[in-house]
């Protein structure tokens, strides 16, 4: 097992999170935004696993499993919504679906 500093692990998780955040903010394609949200969730789970490894507790990996479940549910609903949006909008632009009709 690696004897790494906790900070270094958390820094990698922060870096991944910020990369995902940049993706959500910069890209206007809904598919890329969903993809970036996956990166962000993955980074959050990674922070839990690293902290769990630091204290030798199983809780970190348990939380990682919960995040995994949430990511799976989120991506299923998100992609179904995307398929629905793709009927009306030709290019999956997030700005093109800013108006909703109840």
């Amino acid at each position, binding site marked *: *097992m*690696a*004897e*790494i*500093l*906790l*900070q270094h*692990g958390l820094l*990698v998780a*922060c*870096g*991944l999170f*910020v990369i*995902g*955040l*940049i993706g959500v*903010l*910069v*890209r206007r*394609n809904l*598919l*890329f935004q*969903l*993809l970036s949200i*996956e*990166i962000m969730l*993955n980074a959050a*789970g*990674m922070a839990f*696993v*690293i902290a*769990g*490894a*630091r204290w*030798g507790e*199983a*809780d*970190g*990996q*348990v939380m*990682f*499993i*919960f995040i*995994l*479940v*949430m*990511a*799976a*549910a989120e*991506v*299923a*609903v998100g*992609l*179904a919504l*995307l*398929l*629905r949006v793709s*009927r009306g909008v030709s*290019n*999956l632009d997030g700005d093109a679906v800013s108006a909703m009709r109840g």
Partner: protein
Amino acid sequence: MNFLFYFSSAIALLAAALAISRRNVFHALLYLVVSLLAVAAIFMSLAAAFAAVLEIIIYAGAIMVLFIFVVMMLNLGKRSTEEEAGLLKPMMWAGPGFLALALLFELTIVALRGGGAVTGGPGVGPKEVALSLFGPYLIGVELASFLLLAGLVGAFYLGSQARPSEEEK
């Protein structure tokens, strides 16, 4: 083993950065798979084997397959790629990118001010995770199953509404 952590961290960050900057969706998905596999390697280096295996099976396997199915169903052509290229001018991404990097700077300072605690030790095996998951966290498992059921029903409902109108085309 120390080398494994830093090497796979570099790959994970690089692949994630490449994934969000591609114009073609398939290229982005391939880079994302590499990034997820690198994160699994990080988990292995931390002796969190169960998390590493779940990362590969569910993230790099199931979720990525879902993405690829949707990309195939959408059938995005060359036109979409060109439109995406038009949206990726420096003027568009410089502002949000700068703000997000400022956030990274702030997080770096906060992380480096903490004590130099070392991770590692014997590692956490699947047995401990399972005992914890089905012991104190049992209610969480039940709630996760509710969430998955809600996601299934929601995705089915949204998908079933999309179908008839596609036949109209």
